[in-house]
């Protein structure tokens, strides 16, 4: 057992982001807040700046020159916060939004389960009413930053006797509760940015409900909409090795910049990068003019994943054998390998490419939906994931 403890300790020490990194992120976010640069388009009442997307765009453009150290707040700022602003009570907004903007509190999104990924509505985590409270039992998986999170937006089943989409409720939970266990989960890059999360008789007060009881699917769809816009609208960081400018620089450094094939592929990549960036500007300008992006966030999300793959292909073309082996400690080699290994996440996380295409087809183009077999069946009677529901 002590050998195992050693192993756990050593692994955690190496893989969990250091306190220093976290403290740094919080310091930076607090400084942003103090400078009046956090929550640029969020309501003033809750600590935001109440400005327009034009200011947000300026901020995004300028900050893209740097790698801002506050990505740990991305789920809170991009997804949970906006959903609370959409659906929360005044008390919930007042309690959660200002500390989120100040960088005091980190959020995670507790949707996916081993048996429920693309089909989130088939989740099995249960919340059972007990007097004024709710008692939660179940498991979540692939939960990004759960190990650092103070709060989570939890989707749970509150009624298994109605069809699956109707029996869900969203809760805002305290991740430090003793009834919540977080276990780091290693991803294919060898790091552990996400987790498994277990709930064992987690007790929640009635005011933990976000939106209405039984209306969790609406809350989930609201959050997933914000998620797609947030992921799709993500601006490439200055030092992202897959950004066109950096790949062009790499090509120069490796003496590959005169190769006509490399030049052509870099040119294609630039055009695709611009197309997506300008599409995002258009979405924002349209939202400003009164038509919100709706499901069009899926285009940004899908195109972003494709761009990532295209960039990896160009990187491989430029680097050749340097992408396969490098001197220990060679930062360029490590960076490129990490970029290659992270690529699959962009077409899975936040809804797979397949799911995005279906959303575009159904909701934007109005194509007929696929026949569904489980829409009107009580959840209790469904086959879920790879097992049968309890």
């Amino acid at each position, binding site marked *: 057992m002590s050998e195992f403890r050693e192993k756990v300790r050593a692994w955690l020490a190496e893989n969990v982001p250091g306190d220093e990194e976290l403290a740094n992120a919080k310091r930076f976010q607090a400084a942003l807040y103090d400078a009046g640069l956090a929550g640029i388009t969020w309501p003033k009442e809750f600590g935001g700046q109440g400005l327009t997307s034009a200011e947000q765009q300026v901020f995004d453009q300028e900050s893209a020159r740097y790698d801002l150290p506050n990505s740990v707040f991305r789920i809170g700022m991009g997804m949970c916060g906006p959903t609370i602003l959409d659906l929360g009570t005044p008390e919930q907004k007042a309690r959660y939004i200002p500390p989120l903007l100040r960088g005091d509190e980190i959020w995670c999104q507790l949707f996916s389960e081993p048996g429920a990924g693309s089909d989130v509505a088939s989740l099995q985590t249960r919340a059972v009413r007990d007097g004024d409270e709710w008692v939660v039992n179940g498991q979540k998986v692939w939960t990004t930053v759960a190990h650092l999170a103070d709060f989570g937006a939890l989707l749970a089943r509150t009624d298994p006797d109605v069809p699956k989409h109707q029996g869900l409720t969203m809760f805002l939970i305290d991740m430090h509760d003793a009834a919540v266990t977080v276990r780091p989960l290693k991803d294919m890059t060898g790091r552990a940015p996400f987790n498994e999360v277990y709930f064992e008789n987690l007790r929640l007060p009635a005011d933990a409900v976000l939106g209405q009881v039984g209306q969790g699917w609406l809350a989930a769809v609201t959050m997933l909409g914000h998620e797609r816009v947030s992921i799709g609208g993500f601006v490439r960081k200055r030092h992202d090795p897959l950004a066109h400018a950096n790949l062009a620089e790499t090509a120069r450094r490796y003496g590959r910049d005169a190769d006509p094939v490399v030049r052509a592929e870099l040119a294609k990549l630039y055009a695709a990068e611009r197309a997506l960036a300008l599409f995002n500007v*258009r979405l924002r300008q349209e939202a400003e003019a009164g038509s919100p992006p709706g499901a069009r966030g899926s285009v940004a999300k*899908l195109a972003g994943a494709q761009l990532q793959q295209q960039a990896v292909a160009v990187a491989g073309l430029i680097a050749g054998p340097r992408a396969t082996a490098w001197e220990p400690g060679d930062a360029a080699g490590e960076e490129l390998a990490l970029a290659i290994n992270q690529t699959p996440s962009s077409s899975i996380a936040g809804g797979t490419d397949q799911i995005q295409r279906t959303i575009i087809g159904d909701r934007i183009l109005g194509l007929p939906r696929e026949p569904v077999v489980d829409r009107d069946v009580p959840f209790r009677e469904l086959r879920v994931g790879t097992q049968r529901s309890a």
Partner: protein
Amino acid sequence: MQLVLDTEQQQLRSTVRKLLADHNNVRSVVDGDGAYDAVLWRHLAELGLTGLVVPEELGGAGAGHVERAVVLEELGRALAPVPFFASAVLAADALAALGDTEVLPALAAGEKIGALAVSPGWGPAPVSATERDGGWVLDGHAPFVISGDVAEVFVIYTADGWFVAEDARRMPLTTLDPTRGQAKLEFAASPARRLDTADPAAVLEEVRDLASVALAAEQVGGIGKVLETTVEYAKMRVQFGRAVGSYQAVKHACADLYSTSERAESLLRHAAWAADHDREALPLAAASTQAFTGPAYFAAAASGLQLHGGIGYTWEHDAHLYYKRAKSCELLFGGHDAQLARLAGRLDGVS
């Protein structure tokens, strides 16, 4: 930068769309003699669209490139068989850049049709100019002149600079795209007028950039139309007891068409905006737009045809017209490889 059309621009769009719906005769041109739709051309001229970006004092409407892009999108959507791209874009832009005031008003008014002669890779046409009796004459030929079969005024870029001529022998070519003619022009001691400019090559570059934007507008219009008709068809066509659009293979291909369309439009809006408001950004914007829209239109047209199944491969269906237009557009200006090389060259100084 403004990437969303304002109310007036949207109105312009509906006006042109309506005009094209009422008057477009693409089938009679395709199945007939392969010339152009003269009635439609007259209507476009009456609306002042043939001289849209030409200054008012030269007989134009003095509008911007964003507006011209709107018109070109509609022409591209409808595959309107009129020499707009050749005359109101290529020739008019060259004459405007060269400061010509003699022929441009006639072109702007749609009274005369112009065409531009360059080499296919946008170098000098293989035409030589000789000074004779105080004037100039041209000898040689210009291959692949867009709408050269119907044009009356030729703007020619040669190793000796820019010229305008009206006497050339037009030899119409058979074309992949039946909605837009091409011709080989022959000059044999043909009288010409020289258009003086300090830097002929710089004029060519500018004309080419504006042409890239204009062509992208046609392409974006074409992609939009392909998307619309394909989605309509996928909703209606039933196989195996379901509308084919409910099958993921079909639905996802439609989603990709949509994604392509949205991104191509975004590039176009920016490039057109840059043509009006940020000429410094134009070369890069124009080149990156063409690098994307060329293959995007062809892929969309091919996919749209595929999703129509057998009916898409028939002569009666319009799918092949878009397919042919898209491939022709992609091969213009030296083709996609040349577009990429041009963009790569412009990126060298950018980081």
